């Protein structure tokens, strides 16, 4: 039973053209097996713009006067991904129990802490980090900033709003819900203001180092399940950017299925009790 009757199918050629164009713009690689995903996510755009097929959409992206805005919309549609609070607990345990005490010692003089959640989507990771900082009890009175960035402006709106439904909370322990959220509706919670006060959000294309406002050097960068969107050269560019933005000795935390093999020799692998993490060498510039 064909399901989506009446909607234009994306031809192999249209897929290649759109895929290459998106890649050229932001380094995001849509894998061959994701043609259907691309088609599904872009159907609403064809409908909204009144375009007959994906060739017309491709030409719109290339040549229309509104092309820049539409390209952003297309990227947003293609990069929307799954995220939830307290994802990958083993790594978060390592962060809380081993990385944070070290950062407390190291930054004791400045009492300043900067953490970057790169590819933060709708903000769950950035808020999770802020909650872990609160949990640790080590940084009250410090100048703390957890900075979330994403290429999608739409998800940033949601991130700033800080309101979530049950799906986002599916891995959140009840005590954390009680401590860090307030109920704003039957199925909605909002992150408490004291947590939100430590978190900021901004737009950033990881393939364009100057596109965002990440002025400060970071103590920790969370870049989890973001590089899956990129091919090797694009991943290497992102890693170079992260390296430059980290303080010497700063940590890079990747998703549990990601590693730097064949990507970068700039970082050192650190064996923590709960997990393996990467670190910019102390002598790094």
């Amino acid at each position, binding site marked *: *039973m064909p399901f989506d009757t009446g909607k234009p199918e994306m031809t192999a050629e249209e897929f290649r053209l759109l895929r290459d164009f998106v890649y050229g713009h932001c380094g995001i690689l849509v894998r061959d097996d994701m043609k259907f995903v691309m088609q599904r996510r872009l159907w609403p755009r064809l409908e*909204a713009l009144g375009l007959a097929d994906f060739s017309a959409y491709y030409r719109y992206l290339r040549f229309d*006067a509104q092309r820049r805005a539409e390209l952003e919309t297309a990227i947003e549609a293609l990069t929307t991904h799954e995220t*939830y609070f307290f994802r990958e607990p083993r790594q978060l345990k390592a962060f809380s129990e081993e990385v944070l005490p070290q950062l407390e010692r190291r930054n004791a003089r400045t009492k300043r802490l900067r953490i970057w959640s790169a590819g933060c989507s709708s903000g769950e990771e950035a808020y999770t980090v802020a909650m872990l900082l609160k949990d640790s009890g080590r940084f009250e009175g410090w100048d703390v900033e957890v900075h979330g960035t994403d290429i999608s402006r*739409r998800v940033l709106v949601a991130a700033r709003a800080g309101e979530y*439904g049950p*799906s986002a909370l599916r891995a959140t322990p009840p005590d954390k819900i009680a401590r860090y959220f307030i109920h704003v509706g039957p199925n909605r919670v909002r992150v408490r203001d004291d947590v939100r006060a430590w978190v900021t959000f901004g737009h950033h294309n990881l393939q364009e180092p100057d596109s965002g406002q990440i002025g400060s050097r970071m103590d920790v960068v969370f870049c989890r399940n973001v590089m899956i969107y990129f091919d090797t050269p694009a991943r290497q560019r992102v890693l170079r950017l992260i390296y430059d933005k980290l303080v010497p000795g700063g940590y890079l935390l990747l998703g549990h299925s990601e590693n730097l093999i*064949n990507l970068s020799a700039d970082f050192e692998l650190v064996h923590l009790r709960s997990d393996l993490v990467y670190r910019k060498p102390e002598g790094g510039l």
Partner: protein
Amino acid sequence: MSEEGRNAEEARYRALLELDPSSAGARETLVAGLHDESWRVRRAAAEGLTRVPEREVVVERLISVLGERDETGARNAAAESLAGMGLAAVEPLVRLLGHADPDQRKFAADILGQLKLAEAEEALVKAMLEDVDLNVRVAAAEALGHVGGKVAARALERTLHDPEPLLQLSALESLALLRHPPPLPELVRLLGNPMLKRSAYRVLGLIPQVAATELVCRGLGAESRSTREAALVALGTQAGLSEPSQRTEMDAAVRLALKRLPEAVGWVASALESDDLELRAGALVAAAALREPQLAPLVAEVAQEERLVPEVMRTLAHFGPETGRELLASMDRLSFPAREVAGLVLVEMVDATYVPELVQMLDWGELDLKAVAVQGLGRTRSLEAVEPLAQLLDHPELAGPAVRALVTLAGSFPKQVAQALESALERGAEPVVLSALVRVGGTAMLPLVRRTAREGSVALRATAVEVLAAVEPSGGLELARVALEDESSRVRAAAVRVLGQVGDARMSGLLKRALADEALEVRLAALEAVGECGAVEQVAELESLVRHEDGAIAFRAVRSLARLGSLRDEVLRSAVSHGDHEVVKAALLAGAASAEGVSLAVGLLGHANWDVRAAAARILGASGGRECLPATRAALAAETDALARRALVDAVERLSGR
């Protein structure tokens, strides 16, 4: 490991990474690295050796490491390195297949399998059939699954009759990898063997025939979980290989089998949650046959694996209307990919009874859920849905979907929908509301459109100009003339579009002004309009713009010239040398019917962009003569891109028939 030990390991690792593989002594340093106690260091050494010049020497050195029986780590690292050596390693490894030590021969077979090169096929077949050591024969059989080839497939089939079960198993697994199933009766025999059963089911899945499905269904009824799972995996593979007509028969057979198994819902649910992708694919087929609404959320969650999304949607579409409610109830707990597919399916299932739940869903917060609710409300055919949708018309992100939903509802309630749209417009809603209002209310809405064109916001004025022209061309044209003087470029661009769509060649003067407008948006619209309304007086202007460096301008200039029938050969030649490949393709298309165009297409078979080469091939297939055949064949022989090759193959076929 102590902190000191870790630091020392890190230092050795970094030293190898930073080592120049072409420097003197690098080879032996890396070989020493193969013997390091740390796997990271060994891995770095193995990778480094693949980049050392004089591959033949390196390969021989690595093969000598394979012979160091007490150095397991080093041997494995050497094997890994050899697997990265490509063709240079094949011959020495084939020689190693003749080594006196069976352990060495087994290593050779394993590595040849990893190299995946057809050059090793013959030697591996010989090893599988003739080696005196069973382990070597098994390793060769396994390697052939990666190396492939017709000789290998036939030999593997014959090996299914070997008395050694381990060898049979390896042969069967390799046939599965090669997607080369043996004849069905052969498999029936193997399905009875407990050791081979699982692999036999896997291969059975490669046969998309109902007879094979019926055999698989027997496996679904097995008591052993591993057999059931093997049968499910086979189902998933079959589904992926079946034609739509075969799928219907296949689904019927599976349904019949599962109806007899009351506990099936439980184990299908657990298979849907498995980590095994192939098992989940099979569980989807079983779930589609069971059609138990309680499975729907689990089915939707399988969408987290992108490759299975089409099958997830197909499966959910098989479930009955009750599934919609099950999905709706779990929507806010589903992961994002699951919500995405569940939403698409849900909107196909709703009816008037869903309105309260969908309205409630509008309060859930997440935009994607709201969008599903909006689309669903439009399909309920319920008057109750009009008001909640109308309230969304001021919402910038939901106004578009809400308007589309209301237009759908207008099929049943035109008056109520028109009222809702009109009142939203009075509140200054989005332009899309104006277009919908005219679509629903017809010409009775024209006074409102005219008023909006005079008094509305920029976005509304622009829309009003186009909307009026669509309903009343002469009035629209008149309004467009006035709108050409608007201070907003958006309104002027809309006016220009109207001139193109409903005007004629007499608009040339107006379009000339628009072509010189300060705003790119207006100039682009004018370039399109010139072609649309036949303003041939602007040909010279268009010809000069064909060379414009901005592809958007050049592309439109080419298309308009083609529409006007005024694309001269000289201009065509200039267009196909444009730096933007879309301009080149537009020119190719425009010149398709001319001798010059065909001649240019031949030249463009060597263009740097694959899509231009494919377009040139298509032009030749459609318009070229037999004289183009040699060039097209030559291009095909040199073509490496799959899509361009496909176009060239088609062109060669068509040209050969002329």
